[in-house]
């Protein structure tokens, strides 16, 4: 009951936000198209490099396309839905967060409801197109477990990136600067995951496996979808189970956020 109530409140928030953005329709289409182009350029760069070098550590363009598509669709979802946490530092600075705390609803729900950025559909659609093209040209047989795995990886990825935005918001309780550092794992994470993880140095791989479990929602499940063994030696059951860590990551970061909320002291302005 409580959950349904929260859901209906969220839907109302989202509806208001979407209607607001649709008032400036020309601007919206420009933004969405710009988003598509700007993020799609990454794939053009990958195409140009693979065209020049033939492959990267044994991965061809179509296989890299799968990695690229999965991480970009996931990131687009989190950018669209968790945008409220992204702009949260401004709320703390201006003191607007006090108002949210006064209302008898969950603070996280209200923050996430601030904005649903529809124009992120630009990244979403180009990522999805690249993903489907890659899978189609590799003749991937979409069995039910594979479809479920791919969906779970994308949703797990969206949760992972949302968790990073939550973490960034939580940092804002203690500091107003140095937030740019989170960009290295969000935008930097997307850039990283567009290529197979086996490309990177061990310390870097371990960071994006055990600290920020990016490998779990991208590199590992991709092996199960492509039915190829991992040169780094991970077992097949892990390829299927790994996306769970994306969801787990969000749960953990939300706990940290709750801790931050309890220790929040207003700027007073």
């Amino acid at each position, binding site marked *: 009951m409580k959950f349904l109530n929260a859901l209906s409140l969220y839907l109302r928030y989202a509806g208001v936000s979407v209607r607001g953005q649709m008032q400036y329709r020309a*601007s919206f289409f*420009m*933004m969405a*198209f*710009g*988003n598509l*182009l*700007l993020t799609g*350029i*990454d794939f*053009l*760069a990958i195409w*140009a*490099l693979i*065209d*020049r*070098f*033939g*492959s*990267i*550590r*044994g991965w061809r363009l179509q296989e890299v396309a799968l990695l690229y598509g999965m991480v970009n669709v996931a990131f687009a979802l989190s950018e669209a839905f968790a945008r409220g946490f992204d702009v949260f530092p401004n709320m703390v600075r201006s003191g607007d967060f006090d108002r949210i705390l006064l209302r008898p609803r969950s603070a996280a729900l209200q923050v996430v409801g601030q904005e649903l950025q529809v124009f992120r559909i630009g990244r979403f659609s180009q990522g999805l197109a690249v993903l489907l093209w890659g899978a189609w040209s590799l003749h991937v047989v979409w069995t039910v477990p594979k479809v479920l795995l791919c969906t779970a990886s994308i949703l797990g990825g969206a949760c992972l990136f949302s968790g990073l935005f939550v973490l960034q918001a939580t940092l804002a309780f203690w500091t107003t*600067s*140095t*937030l*740019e*550092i989170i*960009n*290295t794992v969000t935008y*930097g994470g997307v*850039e*990283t995951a567009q*290529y197979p993880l086996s*490309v*990177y*140095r061990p310390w*870097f791989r371990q960071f994006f496996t055990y600290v920020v479990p990016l490998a779990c929602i991208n590199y590992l499940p991709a092996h199960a979808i492509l039915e190829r063994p991992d040169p780094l030696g991970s077992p097949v059951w892990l390829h299927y189970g790994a996306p769970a860590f994306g969801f787990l990551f969000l749960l953990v970061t939300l706990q940290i956020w709750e801790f931050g909320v309890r220790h929040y002291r207003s700027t007073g302005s």
Partner: protein
Amino acid sequence: MMRPHLAILQARIRVLLQYRAAAAAGFGTQLFWGFIRMMIFGAFYQSTSDPQPMTYEEVVTYIWLSQAMLVMMPWNVEEDVRELIRSGNVVYEMLRPVELYGLWFSRSLAFRFAPPLLRALPMFVIAGMFLGMSAPPSGASAAAWAAATLGALLVSASLTTLLSVSLLWTVTGEGVSRLVFSAVVFGSGLAVPIPLFPEWLQQILYFLPFRNLVDVPFRLYLGHIPPSQVWACLLHSAIWVAMLILAGKLLLNRGLRRMVIQGG
């Protein structure tokens, strides 16, 4: 005629040099990005034994150069100018006894000049000492690089001014900024060095103005373009700067003619 413009340039540079904390935070991010790109290119170069148009060592220096000069790229509009237009205070700009395009161009020039001053130097030191960035092969290459960087600065400033002027029509300007940024990232050689592109694409990109931002100065630095060719490169950027300034002026005049002052 030029005096007020120079004064504005100086004042803006002094203001922009105050943002040192932002520069420090950005520096860490750029190091990280440089690392990622270095590892990716490293893997590409290990995946082939064919000779390539650029060596891996050259690409590494190229990557750190691009991290150092990143904030010189024309990818956004100054927040002040945006606010000026959104609030309508832009009409006060017309009261100033200075030619308006020159005024905005001076602002853009300062905006593209000061931030890289803060970021480039530490990047050169760190990347040069620890990360495999090498110095120009000769004094002539270094001089050619310096000259071409000046050209890059002017191209960037004229593009930034064009972006500012476009705000008179689009208000938030984010859409246009994004489109221009896409063109810059891809067309300048920032994402992938132009010599690594397929032949037919290289021909197109060599014609456009964006290559003067990254491709020309960086390859002059590497000696990949011999310093003797610097004059042709400078001519190419001078022609484009002239055209971009002209376009900016025309657009600004049109924008001002249709501007309606509502008072209040």
